[in-house]
């Protein structure tokens, strides 16, 4: 695949090797089957860790690595991988978290039969995601983009016996699939307008114009669907039908960030457009608010986190979409922080679910007392999410606030709007964080404490410890991450700058942070007893269902009309099309004068034509089968005589003989049927059919006359006449044509006759066979 002469995938092209290794291992796991789950896990983890190490090793080299494979050169389709700073960061998140979560999953699934399918697709997904973050070109990104959608579909539907899982999987696939097609359109438009889809080339000389703007709208559409932005946010909570490790990996840490990655890559090039910024702020802001508010209503803590993810995605979309230097920096930092704390939270929920058998706030009670360590770890991650000092989330969010406050220099008043939205969204974030903590780990006065069903093993708890540790240590020494992401941020936008600190000093951003925390806590206390049962009027999920169902309904309606199943309707439609074609041609000509027409070539001809016409009309009128057949015979013989008169004895002879045989076959078949035709009820009114057929007859005649008048070239027959005797040794030119000049036609034609005869034989034999079978089974019944 993607061959470039002389280059082998391997040492020379490490990134390609890494991606392909994923696919290879994933497919092998799927192919090998059910019984080797331990092997599946270890090989999967090994490949992911290898990817991690390779990424680190490659990042330490000085030069940027670049690998290009031409697929279809003429269409500009190349697979173009580049390991720049941002790709490294994302790649490390993908492979690092992937290894961690796959190991966790081995314990989580226990001895589930679907585990093998999970592990295989999981590794495949990791490969696709790695490819996506390495993409240096929009087309390449699109290819991996669609793969991630597909693998996500397969993973959400892992529990395929559940109707809900199937539906959610489909919903996610079709929503992101729609975005994927938008991206396809964008790729094609960039190809046409700019001649390239490489990010670097686009940045070098950004194209402009209406078509490019259309392409950018498509890009945004793609990003919004993939990253679950309003109004496409609905598929993400549905995706929680997947097992928790899947949710933790695909639907919080990696795949849903694909849209963010896309925006991050495009914003430095095209982010200065007004419509771009406005749609980012409006959709991102709405997503942040709606996600947060809906998280407040959830009792299932996994769903609560899912809506929290939606909210956070909106937040990051704003950061990257506005794309000012400091926001880009903050965005990269927060992206990492979010991956860590959200994956940690999901895995923590998985442990709770595994241990207590429930994820319901109204059922769980006393979890914190029974599992103090776990609770502490989860709380650390949760507080990081809320942005509490001294956790990692605080430092990154702080940076974002600073960036937003300073952003009016770049984006004008829009920056202030964004700031307000983010602050409000963060207040809600604090609220649902508190709801999560108290609901999951607190004690309820009205319930007994939940029972521990299974003690979680170290494999389940380990990853949670690690991730919480990262949140805490990262918060205490934020400079490490801060330095780490500076290069990556610069690779997106050379102007990107910033650093992360533990104690920012008392400034506007810090005060805002404190305000957010205080406000969130106060509001949560004030509203915690309220029942949140007022639904938000805009429900994307319902809108999707309505659209989906109405598309299906429309398809049924259209098909009911187009595909009636009635042969008569089909025939009438077909003949009408023929008629239309002829009419167009006739009217195109305008004048219809034909020179050199005589009424008839001879009186015999005229007489026979009249006779044949009369027989034809009689044939239409009579309803008696034998009379019809006889009339057909009259027509056929009449035509034979006409041929004879025309100077075509061979034709006349053959027509005569064929007509005789046709008549015999007709009679052989008709003798078994009723004497008269059934009156034929039909979907199409008789008058209409009559009009169409008369028109067909007339149009055919008129067109034939036109052709007759237009005759230009000399017939090839003249050459045959010359060659016939000397070269082909025959004087009957027609016969010589048949067996020599055009003998090949004859070969085909006799083959047709042979197969037709065989078909008749087959039909009769099969009928006899069936009759025998029926008779035999009737005998059995009697016996």
């Amino acid at each position, binding site marked *: 695949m*993607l061959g470039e002469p002389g280059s082998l995938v391997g040492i020379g092209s490490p990134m390609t090797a890494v991606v392909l290794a994923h696919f290879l291992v994933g497919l092998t796991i*799927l192919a090998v089957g059910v019984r080797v789950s331990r092997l599946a896990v270890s090989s999967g983890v090994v490949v992911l860790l290898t990817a991690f190490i390779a990424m680190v090793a490659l990042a330490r080299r000085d030069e940027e690595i670049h690998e290009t494979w031409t*697929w*279809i050169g003429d*269409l500009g*389709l190349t697979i173009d991988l580049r390991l720049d700073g941002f790709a490294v960061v994302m790649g490390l998140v993908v492979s690092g978290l992937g290894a961690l979560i796959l190991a966790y999953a081995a314990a989580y699934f226990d001895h589930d039969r679907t585990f093998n399918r999970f592990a295989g697709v999981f590794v495949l997904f990791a490969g696709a995601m790695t490819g996506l973050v390495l993409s240096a070109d929009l087309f390449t990104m*699109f290819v991996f983009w669609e793969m991630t959608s597909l693998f996500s579909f397969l993973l959400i*539907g892992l529990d*395929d*016996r559940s109707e809900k899982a199937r539906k959610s*999987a*489909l919903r996610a696939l079709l929503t992101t699939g729609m975005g994927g097609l938008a991206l*396809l359109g964008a*790729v*094609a*438009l960039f190809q*046409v307008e700019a001649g390239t889809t490489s990010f670097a080339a686009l940045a070098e000389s950004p194209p402009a114009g209406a078509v490019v703007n259309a392409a950018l709208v498509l890009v945004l559409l793609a990003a919004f669907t993939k990253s679950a932005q309003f109004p496409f946010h609905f598929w993400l909570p549905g995706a929680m039908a997947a097992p928790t490790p899947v949710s933790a990996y695909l639907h919080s840490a990696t795949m849903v960030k694909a849209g963010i990655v896309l925006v991050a890559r495009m914003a430095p090039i095209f982010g200065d457009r007004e419509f771009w910024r406005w749609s980012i702020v409006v959709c991102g802001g709405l997503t942040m608010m709606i996600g947060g508010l809906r998280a407040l209503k959830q009792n299932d803590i996994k769903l609560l986190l899912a809506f929290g993810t939606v909210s956070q995605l909106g937040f990051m979309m704003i950061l990257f979409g506005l794309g000012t230097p400091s926001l880009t920096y903050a965005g990269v930092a927060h992206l990492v922080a979010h991956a860590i704390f959200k994956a940690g939270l999901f895995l923590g929920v998985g442990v709770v679910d595994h241990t207590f058998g429930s994820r319901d706030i109204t059922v769980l009670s006393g979890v914190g007392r029974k599992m103090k360590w776990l609770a502490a770890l989860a709380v650390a991650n949760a507080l990081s999410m809320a942005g509490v000092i001294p956790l990692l989330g605080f430092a990154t969010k702080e940076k974002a606030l600073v960036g937003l406050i300073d952003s009016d220099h770049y984006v004008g008043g829009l920056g202030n709007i964004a700031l307000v939205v983010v602050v409000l969204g963060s207040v809600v974030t604090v609220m649902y964080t508190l709801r999560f903590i108290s609901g999951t780990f607190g004690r309820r006065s009205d319930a007994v404490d939940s029972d521990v069903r299974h003690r979680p093993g170290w494999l389940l708890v380990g990853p949670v410890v690690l991730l919480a540790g990262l949140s805490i240590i990262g918060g205490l020494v934020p400079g490490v991450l801060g330095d780490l992401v500076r290069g990556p941020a610069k690779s997106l936008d050379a102007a990107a700058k910033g650093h992360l600190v533990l104690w920012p000093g008392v400034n506007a951003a810090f005060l805002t942070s404190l305000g957010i925390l205080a406000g969130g806590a106060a509001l949560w206390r004030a509203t915690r007893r309220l029942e949140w049962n007022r639904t938000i009027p805009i429900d994307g999920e319902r809108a999707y269902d309505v659209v989906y169902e109405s598309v*299906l309904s429309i*398809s049924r309606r259209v098909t009911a009309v187009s*595909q009636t199943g009635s*042969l008569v*309707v*089909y*025939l009438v*439609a*077909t003949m009408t*099309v*023929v008629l239309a074609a*002829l009419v167009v*041609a006739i009217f*195109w*000509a305008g004048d219809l004068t034909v020179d050199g027409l005589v009424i008839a070539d001879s009186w015999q001809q005229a007489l026979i034509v009249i006779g044949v016409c009369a027989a034809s009309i009689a044939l239409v009128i009579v309803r008696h089968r034998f009379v019809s057949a006889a009339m057909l015979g009259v027509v056929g013989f009449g035509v034979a005589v006409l041929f004879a008169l025309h100077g075509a004895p061979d034709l006349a002879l053959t027509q005569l003989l064929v007509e005789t045989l046709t008549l015999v076959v007709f009679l052989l078949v008709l003798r078994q049927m009723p004497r008269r035709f059934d009156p034929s009820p039909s979907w199409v009114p008789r008058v209409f059919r009559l009009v169409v057929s008369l028109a067909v007859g007339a149009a*055919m005649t008129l067109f*034939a006359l*036109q*052709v*007759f008048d237009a*005759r*230009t*070239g000399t*017939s*090839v027959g003249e050459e045959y006449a010359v060659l016939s005797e000397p070269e082909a040794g025959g004087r009957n030119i027609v016969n010589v044509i048949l067996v*020599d*000049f*055009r*003998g*090949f*036609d004859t070969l*085909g034609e006799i*083959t*047709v006759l*042979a*197969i*037709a005869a*065989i*078909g008749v*034989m*087959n039909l009769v034999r*099969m009928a006899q*066979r069936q009759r025998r079978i029926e008779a035999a089974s009737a005998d059995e019944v009697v016996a």
Partner: protein
Amino acid sequence: MNNWLAVPIVLPILAAGVLLVARDRAFQRTISMVVLGVNLAVAVVAMVHVARSDSIEVTAMGGWRSSIAITLVADRLSVMMLVIASAVLLMVLVFAIGQGASDERSPLYLPAYLVLVAGIAQAFLAGDLFNLFVAFELLLMSSYVLLTLEGINAQIRSGTTYVVLNVVESSILLVGIGLIFAATGTVNMAVLSQRLAELPDSVALGLNLLLLVAFGIKAAVFPLFFWLPDSYPTAPSSVTAVFAGLLTKVGVYAIIRTETLLFPGGQEQLLLVIGGATMLIGVLGAMSHTQMKRILSFHIISQIGYMIMGIGFGTVAGLAAAVFYLLHHIPVKTALFLVEGIIEKEAGSSSFDRMSGLIHRSGPLAVLFLIPALSLAGLPPFSGFLAKFALVREGFDEARYGVVIVAIVVSLFTLVSMTKIWTGLFWGDVDPKPAAGRVGILRHHRLMSMSTVLLVAVTLLIAALAGPLFDYCEAAARQLTEPARYVRAVIGP
């Protein structure tokens, strides 16, 4: 060795004759396999030769001057079609032998199949319009026989629809060709390429439309597609697979040939409208059904629309995309029907109402379905995606936004109906329960699986080798847009 171009036509006919005399089953099978193998070999040699020398090869039957003889013409497009068709026909034959049903019951299956093979080859190679008509009759007549082979009620009923509408098609084609001869005095396509241009516009338009209607019925385009979804699903899967993969494509091929060689630059706008309507109506039909064979049948129509759209762009790149689409679609569609055949053989039905949870019984079968299905829906990295992308890009380049947007929406709908099959048949509870002690559907039907796997491998190969193949298609398209080359190759300067 131009003269050997006749082999893929004459040899199967000869073999059909032999099989009618000698009815021993093992013998029949061996002969058929050998003949199809030879056909494939000849086709490959011809393709390599044509591609290497960048020439158009001609053989004149009977050794007469090519302007008066029936000619077989091998340009890039025809040999490519010949290669892919021979490969697919061979694999379906293996499948059918594995399936057992059809040929076990009827000693006439293989003769009819061989005639179909000859007809398809002749249609691709014909350099003579009347000979093309004969080729159509060959493949149609044998398809009638194959479609009604088991003679069961449903086949007779739907076979009737198929036969009647295709007879109408033959009649229209014959009228068109007869009138073309009447107007020009020849049916040699190279000579026609020159003489048709001299005709008055209205006559040329009428002749062009008549041929388009005839080939349109064959290709099942809007509004002439009705017969297809009603008739294909009732035939044995191996028969449907070949019909689905090849017969409509013969129609598309004929449209390409007439629109480039005989009436160049004629009906682009019309073709675009037809293409858009065809893809839409087909996919809507597919979404409304719940039986795999029906859904796939409607998708044939829908996909034809894409190819017609490519022809309608009227550019080299558009044609190249259409040709590539043709190339990719033949094995993909056939593979899907073969998968359906395995399911039907295993479960007795491929209807969602009666079957589900297949993934729990055979993961490999699921993969075997998924690859061509995703290719059909145009997802990367499969061949269908590349074909679709080439079309979309060319459409944007030509600023035909309307039809391209339809094409993109239709591909989403295609994904919808493919996932309907997936969630309906492969996911869910295992139903019906498999017979005791039987594991591995694929292992149980070895020959059927082998041919299906090979076909799927062909589709993957097309994706992997897309670069050189697309170059080839582009060269083929360039050849098509220069009818003078064709004329020169056949009748000399």
